[in-house]
């Protein structure tokens, strides 16, 4: 029986900095500890400020989930102030948010996740030459095509939101810029060009065909495009046999429109989807360098433990839903929205399932974005009233590319009195809680194969990146 410890870091191609400590026994990870090593303290900066300033400051928590942060702040303020977006304002906000989530998904797949398969360690595998040609970091043909397609897609953010990241266009009462008729057709042209990129490279087939997959067997038979290449790699390396998370998923539901959220909210547990209860969210501080007790975000506080006590190992708090570990992300969102393939993948809960869930969302989101852009009415109102608020509370619950994001706000005397944020990777990369139960990625890493002499195990890298972590959001 051999035992060793590994410290993996700096762990790159995740957004921000990450350190993972591994206990390895007999060639497998026996325990993992995820450390979010950066503390900035946004929740301490906001109290005392004018509530509107949250719209400028919170997007700057994260350069990759910026619109998500912006939308969460706007919805929290809307709830506190009674502002309501007109239907078309909500539609424009959904397009802005959908464009960011789409860009994040293709960035993750092509620039963050897939380059590992081009590593020399995999030379000789039947798929390796194709992986090198498509996914070599900085050089692969897919990496370059993705950089260009992503930059063009963000022209929609330039049109609707002025710029990306860090737009101030999404407000509690709507969006600041009313798109004109020519903006609408220009955005539709940009989306058609993005569709061509997806169909030529990623899917090698119409997006509708991928969105229509219903079973894992059909997914395994998918051969075309980079999605097909991923399935071949996954089958060869057994990515469906690793990275098992808690198999309990949360989604706040994505893209609030007049008729409800375009992707349904809920809690997925053991194959059943039920409404989630936001009052059951708590943050446990037992293993975080934070002082205070377990609390709901409306009661929570952020007091960093300057002594960085020995019994803790991360700046990340540990969110739990009803006291239990819960995973968030595109897979969760699609399963909770009721897509049959995603439901099957959620039950599998593997490395492969997270990637395939994301690919499925890319296909479905492309269709939604096209529908939304078509439905824009250049004659409509995009901004409603924005009442000032002296006192009140509000929650802004949205879905970032990588999962559920919540802002909880309290206003007193016209100033922010409390602002608490729980980000997607706070859920997924949470440390252990008071019962010693590991967070989702810590759970998923147990059992990962580590070869003799490996310092930065590839299996660990695949599993960690399959969550699409955003470490700057995590602690904020």
């Amino acid at each position, binding site marked *: 029986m051999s035992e060793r410890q590994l410290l*993996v*870091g*700096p762990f*790159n*191609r995740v957004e*921000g*900095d*990450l*350190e993972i400590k591994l206990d390895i026994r007999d060639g497998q990870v026996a325990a993992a500890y995820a*450390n979010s*090593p*950066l*503390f*900035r*303290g946004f929740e*301490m*900066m906001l*109290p005392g400020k*004018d509530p*509107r*300033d949250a719209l*400028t400051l919170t997007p700057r*928590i*994260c*350069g*990759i989930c*910026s619109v998500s942060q912006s939308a969460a702040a706007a919805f929290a303020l809307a709830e506190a102030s009674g502002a309501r977006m007109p239907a078309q304002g909500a539609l424009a906000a959904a397009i802005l948010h959908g464009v960011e989530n789409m860009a994040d998904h293709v960035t993750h797949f092509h*620039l963050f996740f897939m*380059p590992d398969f*081009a*590593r020399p360690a995999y030379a000789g595998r039947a798929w390796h030459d194709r992986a090198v040609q498509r996914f*070599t*970091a*900085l*050089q692969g043909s897919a990496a370059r095509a993705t*950089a260009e397609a*992503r*930059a*063009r897609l963000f022209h929609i*953010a*330039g*049109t609707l*939101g*002025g*710029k*990306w*990241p*860090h*737009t*101030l*266009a999404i407000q509690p009462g*709507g969006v*600041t*810029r*009313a798109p004109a008729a020519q903006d609408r057709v220009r955005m539709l042209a940009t989306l058609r060009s993005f569709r061509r990129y997806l169909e030529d490279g990623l899917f090698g087939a119409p997006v509708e065909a991928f969105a229509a997959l219903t079973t894992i067997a059909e997914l395994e038979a998918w051969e075309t495009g980079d999605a097909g290449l991923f399935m071949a790699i996954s089958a060869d390396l057994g990515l469906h046999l690793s990275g098992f998370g808690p198999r309990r998923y949360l989604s706040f539901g994505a893209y609030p429109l007049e008729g409800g959220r375009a992707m349904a909210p809920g809690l997925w547990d053991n194959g059943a989807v039920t409404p989630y209860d936001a009052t059951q969210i708590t943050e446990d501080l037992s293993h975080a360098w934070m002082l205070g007790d377990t609390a709901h975000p409306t009661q929570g506080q952020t007091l*960093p433990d300057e002594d960085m006590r020995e019994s803790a190992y991360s700046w990340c708090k540990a969110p739990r839903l009803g006291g239990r570990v819960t995973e968030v992300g595109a897979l969760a969102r699609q399963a909770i929205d009721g897509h049959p393939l995603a439901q099957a993948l959620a039950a599998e809960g593997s490395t492969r399932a997270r990637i395939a869930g994301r690919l499925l969302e890319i296909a479905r989101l492309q269709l939604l974005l096209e529908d939304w852009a078509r439905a824009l009415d250049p004659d409509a109102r*995009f*901004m409603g009233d924005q009442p000032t608020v002296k006192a009140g509370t509000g929650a802004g619950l949205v879905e970032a590319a990588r999962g559920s994001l919540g802002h909880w706000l309290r206003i007193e005397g016209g100033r922010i009195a409390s602002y608490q944020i729980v980000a997607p990777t706070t859920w997924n990369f949470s440390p252990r809680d008071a019962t010693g139960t590991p967070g989702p990625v810590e759970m998923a890493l147990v059992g990962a194969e580590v070869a003799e002499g490996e310092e*930065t195990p590839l299996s660990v890298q695949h599993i960690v990146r399959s969550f699409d972590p955003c470490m*700057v959001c995590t602690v904020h």
Partner: protein
Amino acid sequence: MNLLWLQSAGCGGCTMSLLCAEDPNVFDLLTDAGIDLLWHPSISVETGAEVRRLLARIEAGEETLDVLCVEGSIVTGPKGTGRYHMLAGTGRPMLDWVRSLAPLARDVVAVGTCAAYGGVTSAGGNPAGAVGLAYDGKLKGGALPGDFRARSGRPVINVAGCPTHPDWVTETLLLLAEDRLAAEDLDPLGRPRFYADNLVHHACTKNEFYEYKASARELSEMGCMMEHLGCVGTQAHADCNIRPWNGSGSCTRGNYPCINCTAPEFEEPRHPFTETPTLAGIPIGLPSDMPKAWFMALASLSKAATPKRIDVNAHSDRLKIPPGAEKGGK
């Protein structure tokens, strides 16, 4: 020219913006200009031990470092230790790494306002003790001494912006690759003058409204945002309206105010970002190089002379009266 990119206490948005570079894409641009990325946290393949070995080689002088780009502020807390960001896997604060690597680099580039001056990470009470590389807000001296010089003799190059425009970063790197960025090409705050010698006001599409002080009262109205909505584009050093963002955008074109994000301490304007502070109804922050009395006289005159077209459009969310549709003035 080789390049090492480190990220510390920021949002990563300057890298995300850099990936929006177009014509050519950022990978082709760097490769074709002979800029060799030793490591970048978001886009390089190397992770963990491979990176630690690279850093050790640079520190030991076995690898010559041309350009060190730092994105994000450097946190000095708690209690001056810098332990609010320990670079993963190394057991050393980023504060320590930056102090060790910067003197080894031919040039040091602060990418974004956080790395330049502290930026948003130092907002509020600055809970993490964030500073810029060579500045702490407006004051010289940050993670590095105020008189820091890289091996080239140049100070830290502050490509400030929140986020940075992709071209500000790529053009700085292209100039450095040809060694064509002299100390006099930087403004007094260390920003490359090729973008910082412009004002956001230049080529602002709301300039006709500005001329008549036809002012928007609510976000979403087309009028000038200086009088009521906190816009400081007349004082902000950047070419955002000359060289648009993400195709054809800019903050002001998006109908929200310029908040002077290329400047030190923009994160604490001492008033709500989207509200202009006034004294007896007069905006406090007038264009810096304009005599106040002259401005006031001009403003009241032009307000009185505002044509109906401009007055109506300023308070609309889209064009209501096109040029030429009206006869005469008001």
